[in-house]
């Protein structure tokens, strides 16, 4: 099947020769004055634009691309995007007349690429449908509409209390090893069959971590609708710096174009995209390195003055377009790593203030076995509430307050043991509801299942049972609803709310299930 014949190659070469153009063109050129740390100072290039792509030609003819950054009177400071060890002083530099662009299109799905769109997975070259600039101005007020459709993460704790909407920017923040990436990955996996294109941007991570992520996505069949932009720790700082922007550009292609590749419009709906930037603190560090070697003045924590603008213009590209523009959306899930839970550091405060809410992960919760280790007390979603389905709103309405009250009581109850009946009741309910929010990795739940589970907890079905049985009860109940009472589950899915009749049927179904659960346990 996979035969390679001489005629194949012959044909290709002949075609190329026929279309060959050897016209002479006038080009602007400059010379490298100084090079080091991935930064080149180039003289000449009087017409270079800020952010323009420059071509550095090494002695042996290989071309390395660079990015014009500092435009000075008679020289240009540029960062090199490729292997800068090839470039020496006096090498020639050309302007290209274009800004940095990345290839876009469906052929990128399922691929691992670097921030310039060059494949890293050995699956052959990518035939791009088009190219988009990595720096792109975010749509204005007129082109947008409020967030109103949900992005289901499949995690009860988030979907119930910190809902995310399509077009939202929700920060995932926490110390190292608190499961930040897991939330992003679980969310991507849960988008299967929901018509979302996912883009996972790995910035400054270990290549082995990226490989694990790819493996996880592949084994759960999530790679078919995912693009992975990988700028591991070994890549140069400029590449790490443009990585999230490149990811956003690849996502924008799907948002601004319909399924047929034509620009989205009222009749040609644009796609829905989810971008996970993992993580922006490392991008900020890369940008800091770049700026310092370019001798830009350092500011707080030695970050350059425009690091806020760097993140705000990136996250501003997350958008829900209005119907006239195809109603596409780009949801951003930036990740920020804190040091010792300190959210008052420069980058965390910046990004918290930019985003529409944050999911706060805490080390001690993680250690207590509360996974995902979301601290629902201080996590918020400022706009996602309007994106929740009604059924979820109905059951989760009081959950947040209940849990807050539970935590308060819990703190008190550690002092004394004599508690009145009501308090004890509240404590035991709280313990079971907290338990209900626990979820393993790759164990996403449909929103209907979540509704049923929370409903069961809310109606006190868990109260009589030991806390340790909660998870099994929940999982078995979900299983039961999937097999025996599929009609009811489908009803919730279509109605999207809990009518009195559904509530009644649900109560009856859960009662029946609980009986068999208890019998089965005995």
């Amino acid at each position, binding site marked *: 099947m*996979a035969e390679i014949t001489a005629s194949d*190659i012959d044909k290709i070469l002949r075609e190329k020769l026929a279309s060959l153009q050897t016209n*002479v063109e006038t080009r602007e050129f400059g010379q490298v004055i100084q090079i080091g740390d991935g930064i080149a100072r180039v003289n000449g290039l009087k017409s270079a634009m800020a952010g323009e792509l420059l071509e550095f030609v090494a002695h042996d003819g290989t071309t390395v691309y660079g990015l014009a950054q500092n435009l000075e009177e008679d020289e240009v400071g540029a960062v090199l995007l490729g292997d800068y060890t090839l470039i020496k002083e006096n090498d020639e530099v050309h302007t290209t007349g274009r800004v940095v662009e990345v290839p876009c299109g469906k052929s990128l799905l399922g691929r691992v690429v670097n921030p310039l769109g060059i494949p890293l997975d050995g699956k052959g070259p990518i035939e791009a449908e088009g190219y988009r600039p990595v720096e792109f101005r975010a749509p204005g007020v007129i082109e947008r509409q409020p967030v109103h459709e949900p992005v289901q993460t499949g995690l009860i704790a988030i979907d119930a209390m910190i809902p995310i909407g399509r077009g939202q920017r929700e920060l995932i923040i926490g110390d190292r090893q608190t499961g930040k990436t897991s939330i992003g990955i679980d969310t991507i996996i849960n988008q299967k069959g929901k018509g979302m294109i996912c883009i996972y941007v790995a910035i400054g991570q270990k290549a082995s971590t990226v490989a694990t992520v790819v493996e996880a996505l592949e084994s759960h069949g999530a790679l078919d609708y995912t693009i992975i932009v990988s700028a591991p720790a070994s890549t140069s700082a400029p590449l790490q710096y443009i990585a999230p922007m490149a990811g956003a550009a690849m996502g924008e292609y799907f948002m601004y174009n319909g399924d047929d590749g034509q620009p989205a419009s009222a009749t040609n709906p644009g796609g829905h995209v989810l971008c996970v930037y993992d993580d922006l603190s490392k991008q900020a560090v890369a940008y800091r390195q770049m700026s310092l070697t370019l001798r830009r003045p350092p500011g707080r924590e030695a970050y350059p003055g425009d690091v806020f603008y760097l993140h705000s213009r990136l996250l501003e590209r997350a958008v829900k377009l209005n119907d006239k523009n195809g109603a596409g959306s780009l949801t951003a899930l930036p990740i920020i790593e804190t040091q010792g839970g300190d959210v008052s550091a420069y980058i965390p405060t910046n990004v918290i203030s930019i985003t529409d809410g944050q999911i706060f992960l805490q080390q001690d919760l993680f250690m207590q076995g509360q996974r995902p280790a979301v601290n629902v007390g201080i996590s918020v979603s400022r706009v996602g509430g309007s994106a929740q389905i009604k059924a979820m709103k109905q059951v989760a309405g009081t959950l947040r307050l209940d849990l807050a009250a539970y935590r308060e009581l819990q703190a008190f109850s550690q002092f004394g043991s004599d508690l009145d009946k009501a308090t004890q009741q509240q404590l035991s309910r709280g313990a079971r509801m907290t338990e209900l929010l626990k979820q393993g990795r790759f164990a996403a739940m449909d929103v209907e299942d979540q509704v049923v589970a929370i409903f069961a907890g809310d109606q006190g079905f868990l109260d009589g049972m030991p806390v340790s049985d909660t998870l099994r009860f929940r999982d078995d109940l979900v299983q039961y609803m999937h*097999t025996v009472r599929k009609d009811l589950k489908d009803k919730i899915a279509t109605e999207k709310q809990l009518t009195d009749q559904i509530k009644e049927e649900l109560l009856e179904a859960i009662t029946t299930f609980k009986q068999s659960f208890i019998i089965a346990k005995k």
Partner: protein
Amino acid sequence: MKAQFKKFATRGTAACALASAMAFAAPTLAFAAERETAGISAILPAMDEFIPMLVAFLILLAILVKFGWPMFNGILEKRETTIREALEKSEQARIESERVLAEYQDKLIEARQEAATIISEAKQQAEAQRAATTAKAQEEAEKIIAKAREAMESEKTAAIAELQASVADIACAAMARVVQEDFSDADHRRLIEKSIEEIGTLNA
């Protein structure tokens, strides 16, 4: 009731009087017989004993009628009600036990049915899971095949690209070598002249 009882008592007294009258009448006959046959007098009471005994008997009778009868009557009545009550109770117990039995039987049937539903539900679950697992395995197998095909295809493309590149490289290197070694000064002059013609504007 009392009136009835009095009536009853009066009637009793009348009966007694009649009896004693008969008894008074009988001794005259007895005396006559004693006189006739000494043997019979042996069993006939003597009149002097008979009168006090009759009086005592009458008194006793009166006392008994007055006090003993009601007492006796009461005891009888009491016994009668006790027996009736006992009968009623046993009847009730019987009905109750029957009801309980029926109930138990009902529950048994219900439990059997429930067990049957649970089993069928479990079966249903298992079936659904089995189907899902099979479908998943099928899907995975197909995916693996598709992936292998894809990999093969991409490998082929990569190989072609590589070959193509190396062919191009070799051709161009040969071309460069020919130009470098075989071109005379006159050829170069010609090339330069051609270049001068081709060159566009430099002063933008």
